[in-house]
């Protein structure tokens, strides 16, 4: 028997693993961008005129952009939008991602008659 039994996330073997891994990659990309991409966006659109003094652990006091922008000054359901996005929407998105993956993998396993 001369099959390749080496497992590597970036070189999947077999049809099942190939499909599974590409779905995993998709979900991980959405997960990462929705969490940290939003943080980056907040930084990107922040109004440079609004600053605050931050004391670093090193004792140094620096002035940095506080992050005020249309994302923080738009009201949504009463919330500053960015706060609602982080505290509520992201969590709901995580649940949806998990649900989506479970649906997908159940179906894939059925097709490949795995238990």
């Amino acid at each position, binding site marked *: 028997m001369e099959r390749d039994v080496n497992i590597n996330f970036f070189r999947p073997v077999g049809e099942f693993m190939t499909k599974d891994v590409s779905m995993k990659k998709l979900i991980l990309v959405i997960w990462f961008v929705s969490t940290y991409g939003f943080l980056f966006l907040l930084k990107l659109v922040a109004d440079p005129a609004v600053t605050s003094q931050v004391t670093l652990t090193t004792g140094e006091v620096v002035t940095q952009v506080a992050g005020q922008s249309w994302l923080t000054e738009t009201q949504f359901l*009463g919330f500053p939008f960015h706060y609602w996005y982080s505290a509520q929407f992201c969590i709901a998105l995580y649940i949806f991602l998990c649900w989506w993956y*479970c649906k997908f993998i159940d179906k894939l396993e059925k097709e490949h008659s795995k238990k």
Partner: protein
Amino acid sequence: MKRLMQLGLTLFFMLVSSNLFAAVEDLNPEGKFKVIPALMMIALLVLFVLVGVFAKAQNTEDYWAAGRGVGQLGGGMAIASNWMSAASYLGMAGLIYLKGYFALSYVLGWTGGYVLLLVLMAGQVRRYGKYTAPDFIGDRYYSTTARLLSSLIVIVISFVYSVGQYKGIGMMFNWIFGINYQMSVFVGTGVVLAYVLISGMLGATKNMQVQYVVIVITFFLPLFFIAHKLGYFSAVPQIGYGAALWDIGHGGNGIAAASADPSYYLPFSNYTAYHWFALCITLMLGTAGLPHVIGRFYVVPRVSDARWQVVWGLFCIALVYWTAPCYAAFAKFSNLLGTAGVTIAPDAIVVNAAELAGLPEWFAGFLAAGGVSAAFSTVGGLLMAGASAFAHDIYFRVMNPNATEEKKMFIARAGTIILGVSIIIAALNPPALIAQITAVAFSLGANTFFPLFLLGLWWSRTTKEAAIAGMVVGLLVTFGSMFLPKASVLAYYIPFTSSAILGVPAVLITMIVVSLMTPEPSQEIKELLYKVHNDE
């Protein structure tokens, strides 16, 4: 022997009565015994024990055979109550109160990690078919040294995690019974130890579901009244607190625009974006690398159920995490209004929020009792995980493979008590806030177990030498970051709560380099791994 005991007792009373430990705020300076909260607390404990007694007949398999839908939701509730500790119930709101938007990284870190756990670990771990994390590591990395080292790490994680829980229990007992914090830690943990030793033999899963229901009810109910009292949309306070946030930052509803505090909601007013990112990613990776969380997947009969349990578990956790920021916001709002006469401690802000809003005492008592039960359910699981790592993975597998069942049981009990007592000593003088102490446990999980599971499952070339080197580097980074001088530049980039930002890449690189320099794992290991991903 007698003299030793006398000495110990003297030392004990000196410790308890001294003011050596002034770090924790006294929440109950008049030493008032609060009757209604105390009765609630006792009633809850009795309820848990009774449920355990009556659910005894129902074992794990009966439970899973009981029908898919119910089983998955029930399993999710068990995951959630095992997961949610004093850090979720008390600590998270405290940090949000102090640090505003920055602390949302705790909320996202402790939920987003489940996506990683599901996608990269849950199904594969279940298919690999081992019983504990050290069991998996010992087997996958064909090494007794790796097993030993990973068991020690399990014990250290349980230890650090529990210190935060004991602090929460101590503070709540202090608030309810009016005894000082140090005494409260002794009394509270004595109760937990007794509770673990009793309930450990009773129906655990059923009990965890009851605990989850208690956590949710106690956490939700007072909020409707707080929101109503402060004049916000109270039918769904999880939405209503949004307007309170807006008013905190801009003024309104009684707060003058001049005394508004925009730093509470602006994203980068107290901390940098880098620190937000570092903390959040550490908690996420730690979630996917905590041994007692991964452990929940081994006991499920079917792979599909293991995965669906994650979805339901995350949903049950989210209900509480959507709610925790409400307490922080309402407490902040009341505080800006200037309600006086309440001793505020960040780690008790949930209880303080009810007091600040001027609600009758039993609401706050409800929350205090819920906080204690959240801590109980987690400490129980942690003490058992730590003790079983000691009794099963170290003593039975390595030191004395011929041990009898009684001998093993004895070692496990002794392990629980030793662990419990050493945690008390650390909790007498807690080094940080509850959620921060817990974050250190997560850093350790992220720096050690996460890379070992990730590479172990997804790269068959990983060798045993790499596993050992990885764990050593992970331990060094985690504990190294705690001893960095606070004012150094390194401490700025690697805060002790978020050391995985450096640790995980360092460990992954170490493991890959060492693997490529050492001989490949055997064919059987590769065959087994191939089957995990691809059995026909």
